[in-house]
């Protein structure tokens, strides 16, 4: 096999130029993009939080709205990172040939991917961050520990952006992504304690949950928003870092295979 295909990514600061490219595009469409990022999770949060919350009372020792809000800070970050690294990155790679233009300059494919990776994480962070602000304004978090959620959101964004970029490298078209969304992300949303305490799941299923990155994200975000130090915080962080790095490496190899054939 070709050893160059599997060599470790040679990361460089050139990746920032790719990030800045995407930032310049985003600035032109910022308002629409922010609304899109916020509207969907907020509708879910208010609908389920108030509606279902009234019927459920307290969940996991807190109001259902507060419980759901912390889960949705993590899940909206996941979705924003995913959309950016799937649909938007695919447009740039496949439709607009932006990546091909970039690698004609003294840029490596890993510079492009790293730029896209950090960009998708940035954008997802802004989505999760918006949720955070709304929740804060509503008075559902007051602790300074809530600020520690910020790096956690970046990490969740990096993990899901890297996974999305790996999927992107395999995609044959936009339809391909609906499999990933439906078969991977939707079950993950259900198994990670976003809508209900993960302890309600059967023991065997809980084992699966613990292997999922979103579970570890929620396990960090929820206590922090409630003003508590998360239990086994280092383990949760380590899992997210491992997902981010491993998926990024896979994304680089798969994209090399696709574009450097």
């Amino acid at each position: 096999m070709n050893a160059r295909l599997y060599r470790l990514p040679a990361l460089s600061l050139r990746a920032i130029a790719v990030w800045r490219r995407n930032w310049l595009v985003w600035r032109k469409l910022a308002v629409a993009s922010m609304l899109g990022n916020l509207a969907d999770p907020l509708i879910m949060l208010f609908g389920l939080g108030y509606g279902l919350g009234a019927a459920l009372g307290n969940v996991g020792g807190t109001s259902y709205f507060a419980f759901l809000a912390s889960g949705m800070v993590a899940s909206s970050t996941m979705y924003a990172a995913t959309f950016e690294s799937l649909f938007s990155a695919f447009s740039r790679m496949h439709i607009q040939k932006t990546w091909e233009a970039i690698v004609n300059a003294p840029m490596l494919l890993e510079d492009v991917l790293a730029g896209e990776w950090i960009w998708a994480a940035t954008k997802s962070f802004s989505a999760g961050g918006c949720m955070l602000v709304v929740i804060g304004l509503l008075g559902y978090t007051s602790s300074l520990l809530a600020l520690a959620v910020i790096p956690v959101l970046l990490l969740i964004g990096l993990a899901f952006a890297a996974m999305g970029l790996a999927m992107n490298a395999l995609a044959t078209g936009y339809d391909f992504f609906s499999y990933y969304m439906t078969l991977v992300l939707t079950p993950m949303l259900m198994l990670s304690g976003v809508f209900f305490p993960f302890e309600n799941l059967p023991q065997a299923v809980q084992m699966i949950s613990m292997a999922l990155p979103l579970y570890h994200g929620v396990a960090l975000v929820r206590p922090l928003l409630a003003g508590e130090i998360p239990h086994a915080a280092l383990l949760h962080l380590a899992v997210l870092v491992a997902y981010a790095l491993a998926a990024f490496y896979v994304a680089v190899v798969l994209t090399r295979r696709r574009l450097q054939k």
Partner: protein
Amino acid sequence: MNAPARNALVVSGLRKSYAGREVVCGVDLQVAPGECFGLLGPNGAGKTTTMKLCLGLADPDAGQIELLGHAVPEEGREARAEVGVVPQFDSLDPDFTVAENLVVYGRYFGLNDRDIRARIPELLEFSGLTGRADARIQTLSGGMKRRLTLARALVNDPRMLFLDEPTTGLDPQARHLIWERLRHLLQEGKTLILTTHFMEEAERLCTRVAIMDNGRIITQGSPRALIAQHVEPHVVEVHGPGVDSWAERGKTLAARVERAGETVFCYAADPAPLLADLKGEPELIYLHRPANLEDLFLKLTGRDLRD
């Protein structure tokens, strides 16, 4: 020039397979500085893949590449820093204006915004886009987009340019303007490598061409010398009612006769007997012209359609 005349590009024994099919099968090339080198061939001949390999954008299965003194693909990044590329398909950023496209692209070379912006008026003037700095890409014509792509390839003031079918899809006016700009770059001493299947383009621009088919280089040399070597100097194209029966007689008057659809191509060192005979055939329409690169190309690669 004090520096020794080192080749801009040296390729030897280059091979590349995709999915078990060898698309580049042992290519050797040398391009001297200041030369305009044309890589010609039908669709699927391996031209674009050869270019991609030379730029370090794909890993060869075998062979050596040295581009501007850098071993490729290992030092692809260093080599590309001194090269400009005009890709076959439009890859301008549709979300940006003309100037933004240049600034954003310049950053990929590690240039800072101020230096790029200082270069923009010159680049726009060169590409005939002065006054269009703030135009959106969607408002540009096909020719303007190509010229902007050329300007983008010059943002780093490269020593060498790779152009993959630079005028495909352009109207004659737009094509002539691109040719004129490319000649200007040659006068500045830049080295050009272009792929094309427009023989006219290669004949007008290239000091040397290589004809490629099925992943191999069949022949290379200056267009004039290659035509003289392989093709009779005069061509008479004949068509019209009764061309079938005339073709038999044509074979006795020409050194070589080829048939493509309803047209008969007669190749001859001396066209006089052919022309005299055709004067007596008022039904037939004919065209007498000198042999060109297209005749050479068709002789070497055949008249079959390629997809």
